[in-house]
């Protein structure tokens, strides 16, 4: 490697080779006609668009291979538009390639750096300006200006205060209260234990009070999944077992990872899977995470039955539902 490498000499730009159209007037004429044909095809596309837009009803369907049963109106205006644009492009490019000059031109670059005298002139001017303003000599002005400008940014931030309310304790609360009835979603019918077969599931919500309306914010916290197993299949501690009722166990449907609805229940394995990020929870072990990115089991809702045999919440959730947040008590 010690030997200095002598590079090969640059042979310079290769000689320009003329195109057919440059030397043969017939070829040039042919290229001209080709460009004209391409432009005319574009006009045809525009006509197709106009025809399809006005005269093909949007309930007409045609069968095409690969595409299946397709809407003719949509296809007609789309293809018309595509053709009208494409052929303008093809025509212009073909024109440029065959008939416009194709001799490469050599342009010289200049270094981007300014000339030394310009640079020193600039530095001088800038320095002089600063000198005249006296910023260096008057620190009091400099500091108070910096403080004022810094503070002036504050209103911009403060103005954003009313974008939303403060969270308060709202993330820890749901509409599940002691004794809240479980009702089907959708349908809002109360559920008895006998309504659910072993291996069955039900999507439930807390029963609405008279005049109450269920908002999306409610659903985002209240959605619950009921699952019925054989009681012998549970591997729960005494407390969690007492939260179940005749093999029916209830979990928050909102994933403890990022809040998707966890409702893929596999009856054979008793696993719950979240379709967003594939966290897998074992229902028999109080929704313990057995796979995937979630770090916490799904919160379990304690349930029991009321005097009429309808399923109710024994108590509110004992932990916040949904994804984690800074203030969450684990």
């Amino acid at each position, binding site marked *: 490697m010690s030997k200095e490498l002598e590079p090969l000499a640059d042979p310079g730009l290769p000689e320009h080779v003329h195109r057919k159209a440059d030397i043969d007037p017939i070829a040039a004429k042919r290229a001209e006609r080709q460009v004209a044909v391409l432009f005319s095809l574009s006009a045809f596309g525009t006509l197709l668009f106009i025809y399809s837009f006005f005269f093909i009803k949007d309930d007409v369907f045609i069968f095409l291979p690969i595409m299946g049963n397709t809407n003719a109106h949509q296809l007609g205006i789309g293809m018309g538009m595509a053709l009208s644009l494409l052929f303008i492009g093809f025509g212009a490019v073909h024109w440029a390639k065959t008939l416009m000059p194709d001799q490469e031109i*050599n342009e010289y670059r200049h270094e981007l750096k300014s000339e030394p005298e310009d640079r020193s002139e600039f530095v001088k001017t800038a320095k002089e300006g600063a000198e005249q303003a006296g910023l260096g000599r008057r620190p009091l002005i400099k500091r108070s200006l910096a403080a004022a400008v810094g503070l002036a940014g504050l209103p911009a931030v403060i103005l954003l205060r009313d974008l939303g309310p403060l969270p308060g304790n709202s993330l820890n609360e749901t509409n599940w209260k002691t004794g809240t009835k479980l009702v089907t979603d959708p349908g809002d019918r109360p559920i008895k234990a006998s309504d659910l077969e072993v291996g069955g599931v039900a999507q439930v919500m807390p029963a609405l009070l008279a005049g109450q309306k269920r908002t999306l914010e409610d659903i985002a916290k209240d959605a619950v999944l009921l699952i019925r197993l054989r009681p012998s299949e549970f591997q729960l501690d005494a407390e969690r077992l007492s939260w179940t009722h005749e093999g029916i166990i209830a979990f928050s449907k909102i994933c403890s990872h990022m809040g998707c609805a966890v409702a893929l229940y596999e009856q054979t394995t008793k696993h719950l899977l979240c379709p967003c990020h594939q966290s897998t929870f074992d229902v028999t072990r109080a929704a313990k995470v057995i796979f995937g990115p979630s770090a916490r089991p799904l919160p379990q809702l304690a349930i029991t039955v009321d005097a009429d045999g309808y399923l109710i919440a024994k108590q509110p959730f004992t932990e916040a539902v949904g994804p984690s947040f800074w203030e969450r008590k684990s």
Partner: protein
Amino acid sequence: MTARERVAGTVANYVDERTGAAAWMKKNLQKVFPDHWSFMLGEIALYSFVILLLSGTFLTFWFDPSMRHVVYEGSYQPLKDVEMSAAYASALHISFDVRGGLLMRQIHHWAALIFMAAIVVHLLRVFFTGAFRKPREFNWILGIALLTLGIVEGFLGYSLPDDLLSGTGVRIAHAIIQSIPVVGTYLSFFAFGGAFPGEVFIPRIYIVHVLLLPGIFLALITVHLMLVWYQKHTQYPGPGRTEKNVVGYPFMPVYMAKAGGFFFIVFGVTAFLGAVASINPIWLYGPYTPGQISAGSQPDWYMGWLDGLVRMAPPLETYIFGYTISWNILLPGLIIPGIIFTGMALYPFIESWLSGDKREHHLLDRPRNVPNRTALGVMSLTFMVIAMINGGNDLIATHFDLSINQIMWFSRIGIIVLPPLAFVITKRICLSLQRADRELVLHGKETGRLVMLPHGEFVEIHEELSAEKKFALTQHEQPKAIALVKEDAGGVLNPKGIRARLQARFSAANAENIAKPTASEVKELEGGHH
């Protein structure tokens, strides 16, 4: 002088008297641009942006960015009388009750996907050819900013129709915001105007999507293009092409026709896709409610890697002093992307710092001649591709008879093991390509023709390369290792310390090349050819 020329002359005179534009125009209409297909990739992105502006404006005429509850009364029967947000209802209205509305929606969405894909391939071209080097570092940073904004802008657009799929995406974005330590909960409450999903999110992201971000885009793209214009385009090396010149065709008329024509072609291809291929069929997804979900919920492709990273994250969460930190969200959702994008933005500076190369570069590198940079690029790509594959693991599982658990484990291990492997392999390949170039220059091209020598031996005829080809294959510089100076002659420790050591190691790695043929080596062989 014809009448038309007279009119043109009058107009030109009028404008020039008021702006003095003629001098500038005279020079710039003759501006030279080098011709290469890979220089068109950025143009695809630019034209897609214009298509997005046009089709997006059309959509705003009907789109109602409101989360007010309405009951659907439009013509799509399977959703009749379903309660939904006004945003979703108006997106359905555009799709089914505005002629050409569905086409424009599909063009808008396809253009967005093409826009992002074109940005990525343009970025790869710039990276692998070293076009980001001095003096183009600013433009590289602008490009990274455009890529980042593009991802955000795309995601906001995907969220606007308020269908089940987009709502799920917003839900996940909300969880990422909420996971930020200390301020996350507050940020999420400010962004969503309260608890998720609230009623203000769509109108807020709408104005960001249609005004704020497009405005920033326009400004950044303008500067990006002005810098390209001002600094003049890079060019591939070859005979007659040097660091001091740029060889190509004049802007007027050749590039005007080619680039203008290409705009129509990109628009045409996008319209063709919009005509024949369904994209984001929101009517099938249904309106968003937090209690519902569809199997295989994925984001658009440019977020796929992010989703893949989130899926493969370890289930880590810490609870200290009464506060929760969700590493399983922060790590893949914010920290790793943050490192990736910061690293990308700083790369030109890192490379020049390590190589000590402060010169201007206008001639592009052939990727094989810079094995370390090429290997680093392929390594990063491997990382992204594995993350992306994991983002679609459920669909891959069902279509290729695999299990999501297998794919997840493959990705978890692969994302650590495969990128370094890709680095080593790519570097080897680069070096063998260099060797092949050397062979080619010294011994010419194999022709496949055999001749029998008088004493019975068969030899294959090698055809000598032209002087132009030989030059093209040998014009590049091969860097030399910088010797590490621990202490100077007087025994004083090198003040650069770590930097000197890093530079020495890096330049030694960069110097690992197959020696290119020298003029004397070539001369020696000339004449001795068969």
